[in-house]
C-alpha cells in the first residue's frame, strides 16, 4: 500500500487511512455476494447432477425393464431409448437448421438496415420493433402458427412439391401430395426462424455498429458504394460476431419446445422430406408430449433425453460465447 515515492505509508497508518470500518458488516456483505456468485456455479452443477440422478435408472437399464414399462420404447421396432434419442437429435438438428438457414440472412439484412441503412433517428425505434418479436411468448407463436400460419402456407408447400419435388428435401408423399394439414418440419422451421430472428439481429447489430468509423470512411473515400463499403469494411469486422450470433440462435432453436409441439405432427424417422407430416420430432417437443402421461420409468427416460439436450445446448452456447468473446479481444474498436 505505497502511495507515493517520497514516503511509504506504514502498515498501521495504511489501515487507518483505508478501511477503519473493514468491519464485520463489510465481511458479511462480501461473503453474501460471493456466495450468490458461487451459487450460480453450484446451480449449474446441480442441474447436471439432478438430471443425471433421475435419468440414471433409464440410462443404466440393461435388462429391458424400461422397454417393458414404457410403451413408446420398443427395441424390436428399432425404437430403444438410444435409437429414439438418435431420431430426435436428427429431427432437432434438421428443424433448427431450417430455422437458421431462413433466419440468418434475414437477420444480417435487418441488422445492416438498422446499423447502416435506416435514418439515424428512426434506427433505435425500428430496432425496438424487432425486439418485440422476442417478447412474444413461444406459446402464442405456437397457437398462431398452428391455427393461422400453417393453413396459409399449405398451398405454397403443394406448389413447392409440384415444382421442386425432384429435390429430395421437397419430395411429396407417394400419392404426389404434401401433408394436407401443413404440420410438417418446414412449418416448425419457419416459426422457429421468426423466433430466433430477434436474437441473431440484436447481436449482429451490436457488432456492426462497432465497426471502426475510419475503416468505413476509408472504404467510402476509395470510391466504394455503400454495399461495397459494407462488404470490405463491415463484414470482415463482424464475421465472427455474426457466427456467434447464429450459434446463440441455434442454442435457442434447439431448445424451443412449445412452437414445435403445437405445430409439428410428430414421428420418428431419418428422412429429409420436410414437406411430409409424421416424420420428425424434436427432443424438447417429445418430452413435452410424453411427460404428462409418463410413469416413473418413462419420466426417467425423458429426463435422460433432457440431459442429452442440456449437454448439446451447453456445448453450442459455450462455443458461441467463445467465438463472440474471441472477437472482442482482437478487435481494435474497444
Amino acid at each position, binding site marked *: 500500500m505505497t502511495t507515493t515515492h517520497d514516503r511509504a505509508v506504514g502498515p498501521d497508518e495504511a489501515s487507518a487511512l483505508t478501511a477503519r470500518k473493514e468491519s464485520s*458488516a463489510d465481511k458479511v456483505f462480501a461473503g453474501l455476494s460471493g456466495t*450468490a456468485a458461487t451459487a450460480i456455479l453450484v446451480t449449474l452443477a446441480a442441474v447436471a447432477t439432478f438430471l443425471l440422478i433421475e435419468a440414471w435408472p433409464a440410462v443404466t437399464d440393461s435388462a429391458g425393464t424400461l422397454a417393458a414399462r414404457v410403451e413408446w420404447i420398443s427395441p424390436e421396432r428399432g425404437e430403444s431409448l438410444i435409437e429414439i434419442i438418435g431420431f430426435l437429435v436428427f429431427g432437432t438438428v434438421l428443424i433448427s437448421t431450417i430455422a437458421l438457414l431462413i433466419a440468418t440472412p434475414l437477420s444480417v439484412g435487418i441488422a445492416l438496415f438498422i446499423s447502416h441503412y435506416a435514418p439515424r433517428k428512426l434506427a433505435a425505434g425500428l430496432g425496438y420493433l424487432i425486439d418485440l418479436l422476442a417478447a412474444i411468448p413461444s406459446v402464442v407463436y405456437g397457437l398462431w402458427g398452428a391455427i393461422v400460419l400453417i393453413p396459409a402456407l399449405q398451398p405454397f408447400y403443394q406448389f413447392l412439391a409440384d415444382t421442386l419435388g425432384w429435390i429430395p428435401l421437397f419430395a411429396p408423399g407417394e400419392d404426389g401430395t404434401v401433408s394436407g394439414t401443413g404440420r410438417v418440419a418446414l412449418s416448425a422451421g419457419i416459426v422457429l426462424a421468426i423466433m430466433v430472428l430477434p436474437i441473431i439481429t440484436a447481436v449482429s447489430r451490436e457488432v456492426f455498429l462497432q465497426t471502426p468509423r475510419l475503416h468505413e470512411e476509408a472504404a467510402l473515400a476509395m470510391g466504394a458504394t455503400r454495399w461495397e463499403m459494407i462488404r470490405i469494411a463491415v463484414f470482415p469486422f463482424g464475421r465472427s460476431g455474426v457466427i456467434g450470433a447464429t450459434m446463440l440462435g441455434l442454442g435457442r432453436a434447439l*431448445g424451443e419446445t412449445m412452437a414445435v409441439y403445437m405445430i409439428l405432427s410428430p414421428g420418428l424417422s431419418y428422412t429429409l422430406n420436410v414437406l411430409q407430416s409424421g416424420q420428425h420430432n424434436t427432443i424438447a417437443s417429445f418430452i413435452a408430449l410424453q411427460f404428462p402421461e409418463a410413469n416413473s420409468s418413462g419420466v426417467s427416460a425423458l429426463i435422460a433425453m433432457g440431459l442429452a439436450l442440456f449437454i448439446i445446448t451447453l456445448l453450442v452456447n459455450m462455443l458461441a460465447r467463445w467465438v463472440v468473446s474471441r472477437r472482442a479481444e482482437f478487435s481494435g474498436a474497444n
Partner: protein
Amino acid sequence: MASQTTTTPFGQVSARRKAVNGAMTVLIYGAFALALIPLLWLSATVVSRGVDRFMVDGNGDEKFNLDFLNQSMRGIFGGMPEGGIAHAIAGTLSITLAATLISVPIGLLAAVYLVEYGKGTLKRAVTFLVDVMTGIPSIVAGLFAYAVFAVVVGPGTKLGIVGAVALSLLMIPVVVRATEEMLKLVPNELREASYALGVPKWLTILKVVIRTAAAGITTGVTLAIARVIGETAPLLIAVGVADSYNLNLFDGRMMTLPVYIVSEWRKGDQPCNNPEIACVPEITEYRAWAAALVLILIVMALNLVARLVSKYFSPKTGR
C-alpha cells in the same frame, strides 16, 4: 482513348456496381419489411380473435362481457360458453412472484460480486457460466426443478413452487446480466467520493452504487419477469394443470396462463348435440386466443413499464 478518360469523371461508378448496390439496398430494406410481416400479422390475429371470447355471454349469445377474466374452469366441460382465466392469472402471478423473489436477491448479489468484488478465476467462471446459463432450454429448467423435488420431496411432486424454481433458473442469468451492465455504468468517481468520506465499502455499494443504478436494475428485473411470464414448457412439466383456484404454492397443481392456452387449444372443437343447452363448439379456441391476448397484453405492459422506468427514473448523465 484519351477522350474516353476525360469524359469519364473520376470516381464514376460502373453500371454493374451501381446495380449491385441498388439490389442490395432493396434486399436489405426488404429483409426488414419481411420481418415486420409476422409481427403485424400475429398481433392483428391475436387481437381480432382474442375478443371473440369476450363477445360470448353465459347463454351463448353475442354480448360483450368480462366474465372470462372473473371465472375459473371449475365445473366447465364440453362446449359450455363459460369458463375463464381467473385461476390461471392467479397462478401465473403467484408463481412468477415467487420466481422473482428467488432470482432477484441471488442475481443482484451475484452481479455486485462480479462488478465490485470479483477477481481472478471465479469472476471469469461466473461471467462465462451466466452467459451459458442464458442458453439453457426452458424445458430443461422444468426437468431440473422436477428432478430436484423428485429427489428431495418424492417422485411426481408437482407444485407451484417447483415451477417457481424452474422459472428462477431461467430468470437469474437475465437479472445478473442486466444488473451487471447497470452497475458498470456507475461512474467510479461516485465510489471514490464515498470512500473519501469514510463510508465503508458495503454501505457505498448499497447507498451509492445500487441507488444510482436502481432505475436500470428495475428495468432489467421487469424485462426478466416479462421474459419468464410467458414460459410454458417448464410449467407444463413442473406444475401441471388445474381447473380451479389454487394460491398455495406448496400444495397441489396450479394453472398458469401459458399452460391454459395450450390445454384449451388441445381440447379442440366441442360437440354440441343438445339444442336445449347453451353450447359454442369453438369455445375452446376462443378461450385460447383470449388467454393469448391477455398474456401478450401483460408482457407488453411489463415491457412498457420497463422502458418508462428507465426513461424517467434513471440519473441524467451528460450524454
